[in-house]
């Protein structure tokens, strides 16, 4: 057991710090945080810079534009990224879900076609899993795909799809064999979002932002070979996606939580117009400390997960633990920020603290226990697959 960087890790960390110092926009450290989503053009340009430096795909094979390093280096990147409050890569779905699934299941041709353009931010991905009648129950997906000559013809509707409005491609779970048992009738397609018949309708969220979308597919023709795995293997392919979603997410979420805790400390240490400095209130201090302990617990649980990933090659159950705990801790953090602001927390927009940053964060955080596996589903997974309790259904 040793928490210190190896000499190689320390060199990597040092280079990364210098790179951030040289590449983040001037005055970045002192800026007010962005309310809502970053401007996509800014994110795209930043992603291209990350790619040029090799930092988009630290653990990815060199053949596809990655650095081919062990997961520990990805952890270092995320830590330093949080400390510099660096902008995120635009390809959140691509990096965390589509890419790892293509790496695991794709043909050589698919890997060459998609991966480096995904890493550079040139192409953005979205996810077409959830449907109006199939949310947590993915095996209930009804969007159909039928073979017609050299193409799959897709009809149906997907929902809660972040980035779909700017996406170039979609990882799409469809039903290709309606007669098969639910899980066995699914297939996993890679769909060009510019195809005729694809219509994206933004959904306005609780925050007011149109962060996610509905996607309608009407007679959309998808080339027959734009499939991951064999027809009928979609469930297994999708499980790879979800494992990676939760496996690698822990570090990224913890990094975001650390950056947000720093913002909370900044807010709590500012004297309000009524003369109160919330950081002097023992109850506020206790809650801030509890959140700091949540952060440390998440951080070191990620480290343990990383160590077992390095040793065994597969993400362990810690990903579900981290996601579940982060989502609830993030809700407590953002709520505390609102409590700290007091009555001023009701003001939104330009007159509000940091332009309404905390109101946005607090409202957005309610989605944390729903997206990427609801807390209820994650508790089922932990109870059944980790603790070994019998299945509940």
């Amino acid at each position: 057991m040793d928490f210190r960087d190896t000499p190689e890790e320390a060199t990597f960390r040092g280079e990364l710090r210098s790179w951030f110092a040289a590449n983040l926009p001037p005055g970045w450290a002192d800026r007010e945080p962005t309310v809502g989503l970053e401007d996509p053009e800014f994110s795209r340009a930043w992603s291209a810079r990350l790619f040029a430096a090799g930092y988009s795909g630290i653990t990815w094979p060199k053949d596809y534009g990655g650095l081919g390093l062990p997961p520990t280096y990805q952890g270092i990147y995320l830590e330093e990224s949080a400390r510099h409050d660096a902008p995120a890569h635009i390809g959140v779905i691509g990096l965390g879900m589509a890419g790892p699934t293509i790496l695991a299941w794709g043909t050589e041709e698919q890997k060459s076609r998609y991966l480096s353009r995904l890493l550079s931010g040139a192409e953005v991905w979205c996810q077409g899993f959830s449907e109006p009648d199939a949310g947590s129950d993915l095996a209930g997906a009804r969007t159909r795909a039928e073979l017609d000559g050299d193409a799959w013809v897709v009809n149906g509707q997907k929902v809660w799809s972040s980035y779909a409005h700017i996406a170039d491609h979609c990882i799409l779970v469809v039903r290709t064999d309606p007669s098969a048992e639910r899980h066995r009738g699914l297939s996993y397609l890679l769909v060009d979002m510019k195809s005729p018949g694809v219509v994206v309708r933004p959904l306005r969220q609780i925050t007011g932002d149109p962060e996610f979308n509905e996607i309608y597919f009407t007679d959309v023709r998808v080339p027959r070979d734009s499939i991951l795995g064999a027809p009928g293997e979609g469930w297994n392919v999708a499980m790879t996606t979800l494992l990676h979603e939760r496996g690698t997410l822990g570090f990224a979420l913890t990094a975001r939580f650390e950056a947000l805790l720093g913002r909370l400390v900044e807010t709590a240490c500012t004297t309000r117009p009524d003369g109160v400095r919330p950081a002097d209130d023992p109850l506020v201090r206790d809650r801030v400390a509890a959140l700091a302990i949540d952060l440390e617990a998440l951080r070191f649980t990620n480290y343990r997960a990383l160590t077992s990933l390095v040793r065994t090659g597969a993400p362990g159950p810690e990903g579900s633990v981290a996601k579940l705990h982060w989502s609830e801790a993030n809700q407590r953090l953002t709520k505390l920020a609102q409590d700290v602001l007091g009555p001023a927390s009701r003001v939104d927009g330009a007159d509000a603290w940091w332009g309404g940053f905390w109101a946005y964060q607090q409202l957005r955080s309610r989605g944390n226990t729903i997206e990427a596996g609801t807390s209820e589903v994650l508790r089922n997974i932990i109870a059944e697959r980790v603790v070994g309790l019998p299945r509940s259904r």
Partner: protein
Amino acid sequence: MDFAFSADQDELRATARRLLADRLPPERLHALADAGDGDGTSSALWSELVGLGWVGLSAPEGGGSFLDEAVLLEEAGYALLPDPLLASVVCLPAVTLAPKPDPTAATVLAWAEPAGPQTFRSAAKVKTWATRTDGAWQLTGTKSDIADLGSAAQVVVLAASESGPALLLVEPTRGAVRLLPTTDGTRRIGTLTLGGTPAVLLAAGSEAAPLLTAMRRRAEAGLALESVGIAQRMLDIASEHAKQREQFGRVIGTYQAVSHHIADMYVRTELARSLAYRAAWCVATIETEPTAVTGQEVDVACAAAKAAATETAVFAAEGAIQVLGGIGMTWEHVAHRFYKRALANETFAGSPAEHRATVATAILGAAR
């Protein structure tokens, strides 16, 4: 970065798990805890632990570090070991300073006083006096809240002296020992009254201060580790029960109202485990490579682990009692033994709120 125990440490854990499960089945724990006039411990087991080389591991000749002791402390919690392993681990840095040190003797720590300080952090208020006559040291005063006093061969006493706070070693039989009835029968608390009692000086003044810090860190990390072991045992007991007990024609583990409760116990136990292992590494590292971590890093890691892990053990024990149902409320079931230790650990050596205050100061600065 590598966050895993070594193969040797994994082996030590497996051996300890097996041995302690064999020596301390529930009926044995009940018997030890319920022996009205006993000290709740079994000296036979202590000799066995010494024989295995598990006591005094991080002493100069012990061949191990606090990380090895950490493995044993977690397993001691899992088995609810009634012997004073934790106290002996805490006292070890002081014990090794004795002219003729005995790192394998069952040692306990006496810092609190009836009307005085309850934790390490207020050493300056101690009223027990250490005086020297003709080169020999004597102690006078009353020390209270001494965990495992009944099974101690020697006691490390925090006292005041002409040169400031001092740590001395006494044999409990030289003073007046009074054991109190305690809810946790596996870790009894006692009072030690000393009147000109002969003692051996371990450190005084500027030499005592860093020793106190080292012992405080060991106590906080050690209680966290023991609590993780308790939480894991409670989780195991609850999940075993939920896999077998049937109601309404189904095993109760299939009901999400039950299984989600157990999932939460698992999540909190894993998070506490991460904090406790991190604290253990910090303590081991600052003791062996003082420049590799900062004192504040170690203090915050210990405070965070103590606060979270002791609360988690209570949470897990309460969860287990709930999942067990009526049987969990009985004297006959072993759950209450663990619950009582968990509650004791929460209050001992600083409450969770006090430790969170330490963490708050580290990130918010002092309150104005």
